């Protein structure tokens, strides 16, 4: 090969670069965008360790070390914020993660293809509605004169209407239920796709062995989609601290604050509304570190369990 290309390697490399100058420009435009909009904010994180005021530049601001982190741990809100963040996330993971799998398993058992398709189309409709619109629906339903109170009053289950959104006790339930309502069908798509690629031979063999519908689900379908479930589980765990900021921002109010103040909301409030930029950046960074640790744990656990992992 060397003999066939007499030019020295360096010139050869430059010629190659010249030949691909157009795609290099395309790629570098993307890289420039990524550096500006992703990496510059990452650099901005250092204000978590500085005392940044809006008048100073980031570089000029004096270093304060871990002071803002300490302030967060000692803050009265710390315990409450952590409890809400972890509580909502954990319940969402425990209830919200398996439900789409179960839904997909049962939807897969529907025989008529058209009927199946219709149910699927309906089930993911709510995914396309915004949380603002859903917030409007929920506030209407859960109002004193709303449909929920009307039904419960008519059935004599309660004596007086309840202001659900004004009671912290109901907040987690509302958040989790409405999130499942919105995303159940959508999350099931990926499992249905995985199920549809399971070989029909396996089911036929199971039928010959006398397996019933539940047995086929348990011994054939579930093991076949184990890989998909693992990957989505890792992603769910690492995203667990993102307890749906959009959703909570729409539904929270002063009365349910003790149940609705999660890390993301707290960052928004202290940073954007109170202007404590350094402090709220520190809180946000604390969240990212925990999320990263969770991602690594989930990844190594699923790797040990069944040899699937994200990286």
């Amino acid at each position, binding site marked *: 090969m060397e003999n066939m290309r007499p030019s020295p390697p360096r010139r050869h490399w430059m010629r190659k670069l010249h030949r691909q100058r157009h795609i290099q420009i395309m790629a570098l*435009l993307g890289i420039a965008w*990524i550096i500006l*909009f992703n990496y510059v904010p990452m650099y901005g994180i250092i204000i978590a360790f500085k005392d940044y005021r809006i008048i100073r530049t980031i570089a000029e601001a004096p270093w304060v070390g871990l002071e803002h982190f300490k302030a967060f741990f000692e803050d009265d809100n710390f315990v409450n914020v952590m409890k809400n963040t972890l509580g909502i996330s954990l319940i969402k993971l425990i209830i919200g993660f398996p439900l789409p799998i179960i839904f997909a398993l049962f939807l897969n*058992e529907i025989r008529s293809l058209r009927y199946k398709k219709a149910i699927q189309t309906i*089930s993911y*409709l709510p995914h396309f509605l915004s949380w603002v619109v859903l917030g409007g*629906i929920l506030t209407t339903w859960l109002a004193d004169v709303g449909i929920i109170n009307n039904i419960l009053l008519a059935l004599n289950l309660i004596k007086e209407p309840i202001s659900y959104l004004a009671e912290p006790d109901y907040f987690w339930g509302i958040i989790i239920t409405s999130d499942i309502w919105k995303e159940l069908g959508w999350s099931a798509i990926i499992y249905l796709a995985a199920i549809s690629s399971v070989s029909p031979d396996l089911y*036929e063999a199971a039928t010959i062995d006398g397996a019933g519908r539940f047995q086929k689900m348990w011994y054939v379908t579930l093991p076949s989609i184990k890989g998909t479930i693992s990957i989505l589980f890792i992603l769910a765990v690492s995203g667990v601290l993102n307890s749906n900021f*959009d959703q909570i921002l729409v539904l929270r109010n002063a009365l349910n604050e003790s149940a609705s103040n999660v890390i993301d909301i707290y960052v928004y409030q202290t940073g*954007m509304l109170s202007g404590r930029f350094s402090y709220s950046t520190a809180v946000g960074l604390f969240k990212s570190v925990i999320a990263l640790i969770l991602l690594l744990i989930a990844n190594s656990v699923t790797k040990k369990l069944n040899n699937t992992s994200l990286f």
Partner: protein
Amino acid sequence: MLSLNRKTKGEALFDLLNNIGMLLICFVTLYPIWYVVVNSLNEGVDGMRGGIYWWPRIFSFENYMGVFRNPGIMTAMGVTVAKTLLGTILHVFFTAMVAYAFSRRELIGGKIYIFIGTVTLFFGGGLIPTYLLMKDLHLLDNFLVYIIPVMFSFFDLIIFMTFFREIPDGLEEAAEIDGANDWSIFIRIIIPVSMPVIATISLFHGVYQWNDYFTGVIYMNNMDLQPIQTYLYRVVAQSSSNQMVAQIPGGIGKTVTSQSIKLATMVVTTLPIVFVYPFLQRYFVKGMMIGSIKG
């Protein structure tokens, strides 16, 4: 296939219960939406008495007239349409272009580029550093804040790249022999054969653009540039509902209420998406699979 003609009692019971369960899920999914629609079609003052569950009691289009006569709502709607169209076109074109470059195996530095991008999937600056950047770039109170910061997504790039790598090399080689450069190959050959994935990403980003309210909340003080979702957020969450009625020019204020206008606005805001998604669904199921399974 074996159990086709013979159905045991247990099987029949299973199918029956499964069907009932599925119908129940469909009802629970659709009814809250239906409820909003019928209430928005009922006369506002009468609607306050409640009890409208299946069909309007006093049918009226007044609420919708109120929405369309409200200059604030219409401006916000215009902003949303503009940012959705422009934002989606730019996002898809730019992300696809970078993905096309990244998908070429001979690209010098390709591995480093992909590494630089992958990092962004796991790390980010967070709310405040991002806000400070937007401020420095003079994007506050600027329409472009809806477009430029979301013009690119590395996650979408992976979906594009996976698709592009499946395109047979022969297609590009033939064009190259005909003297086409990379730009014209991308625009005249790659884009036309990639319609399924382009439709998928367009739908995803279009829905994001249409539904996003938070960008308007933090970066926009100029009310003439706020999108409809931000407008609704300010009414729903901060319940400054009186502002809506106040803005309706004289006369019809008697039959509509802030609540009934709110419901009609919610319906108007949602309708375009409901119309679009069934047409694109065969594409996005495929797109989801490409994007997630290989992830």
